[in-house]
């Protein structure tokens, strides 16, 4: 009986194989909803099926290093340059950008809204010891947050119980922050598309230090011979084409643009 059922399922499961590219992307690329409109367009324009592995930047780089994906799309410049310098990727191509924002309870007990810089806003959160949720997963957002803490001169290891490292993706971390009424650093796109905002609101944005660039890196096919370099090049060319510009610029939530094409 189980055999019969299995046979039936296998016949259902066998589908024609199109040319596929495996792309490891940061959680924000998917949590923002951009991938849902971009992938069908890529399929229509180039015939490529892009298989997304949604992970943090740290894990994406690790997957690229092992050759388990064909290319990566991440947002942590220093780590990316290191990756390319080590020869794991061929080059780094800047695709789009937006910014990070400080999210927190609408009542804003730490008075983040009236600060001038991102570092200053973290400082007042530390001073009031209001709960703060950190990604803690070595992702691009987490790296950015650590850099900001460094700018304040405070060591994250020395922060008290109010500093909570959850070790999760952007969405899961936002859920935790919503439950705790805590402050959190998020990329703008994930925040806008997030469905469980509760008492949270965007409190601080606009500091140049919060700039967030996304870049595409093909995995080095000299190291990983199974990588389909030609398909990856097709994908890269699409990502910097006018078609991509239209998709990225046209993707809005409540009238707000989430990403800007290219690099400033």
């Amino acid at each position, binding site marked *: 009986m189980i055999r019969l059922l299995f046979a039936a399922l296998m016949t259902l499961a066998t589908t024609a194989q199109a040319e596929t590219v495996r792309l490891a992307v940061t959680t924000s690329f998917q949590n923002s909803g951009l991938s849902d409109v971009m992938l069908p367009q890529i399929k229509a324009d180039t015939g490529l099926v892009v*298989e997304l592995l949604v992970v943090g930047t740290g894990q994406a780089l690790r997957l690229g290093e092992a050759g388990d994906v064909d290319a990566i799309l991440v947002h942590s410049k220093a780590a990316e340059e290191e990756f390319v310098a080590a020869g794991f990727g061929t080059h780094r191509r800047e695709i789009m950008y937006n910014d990070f924002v400080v999210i927190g309870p609408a009542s804003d007990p730490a008075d983040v809204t009236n600060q001038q810089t991102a570092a200053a806003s973290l400082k007042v959160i530390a001073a009031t010891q209001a709960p703060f949720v950190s990604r803690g997963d070595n992702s691009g957002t987490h790296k950015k947050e650590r850099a900001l803490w460094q700018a304040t001169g405070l060591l994250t290891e020395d922060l008290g119980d109010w500093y909570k490292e959850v070790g999760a993706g952007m969405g899961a971390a936002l859920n935790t922050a919503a439950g705790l009424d805590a402050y959190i650093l998020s990329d703008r796109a994930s925040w806008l598309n997030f469905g*469980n905002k509760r008492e949270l609101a965007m409190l601080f944005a606009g500091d140049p230090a919060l700039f967030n660039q996304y870049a595409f890196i093909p995995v080095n096919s000299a190291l990983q011979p199974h990588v389909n370099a030609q398909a990856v090049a097709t994908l890269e060319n699409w990502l910097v084409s006018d078609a991509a510009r239209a998709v990225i610029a046209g993707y809005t939530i409540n009238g707000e643009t989430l990403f800007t094409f290219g690099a400033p």
Partner: protein
Amino acid sequence: MTDIWAGLASAFWLVVSLDADLVDITLRSLQVSLTALLIASLIALPFGTWLAIRRFRFRRATIAALNALMGLPPVVVGLIVYLLLSRSGPFGVLGLLFTPTAMIIAQVIIITPLIASITHQAMRELWAEYHDLLISLNTSNWQRIRTLIFDGRRALLTASLAGFGRAIGEVGAIMIVGGNIDQATRVLTTAIALETGKGDFALALGLGFVLIALALLVNFAIHVLSRTEREGRW
């Protein structure tokens, strides 16, 4: 409470409208977990029975190890299978990572000890009953195993269904080795994790109810098809 009602409503609409994505991931869930169940049963049922009838030196240790492995953390299994199947791992050339096959491998590893352990418990008692008869008939080991498996099929069904339950609801391992790729390796549990991450609790809960309904349906189907709990049948 409103979230739960919204979840129920969302589950209802997903099922009523036969949402194409839902059908796709549900069938994949079934395909992966039923295949894993089949393979794990083929290994675990004879092995558990063999453990019940054979006396050998490390039997106690084997049984203790098997019982301990019932609690094998799926995320660790996932990580180990990932490292083995990764392009930089020993089986990388097979290119199995991020495919349903990788997910099946991980689930087989997770549920085989569970099925074998429950099988062993059930078969030990049956063997106590059958011991004298089967010994006196001078049966071979293989004949004894077959007899016990056939006569103990109802207990074994329970063992298998417990394995299926663990497989279909498992998320830690298949998230790592499958990668939750849309249209390729996304199953119900990983889709629920994804929707929760997006903060779309209604859809996540809706998928959860579909998963629970599916587990019930499979259990009922197997009971009906194997005609247990019927009058005149054991």
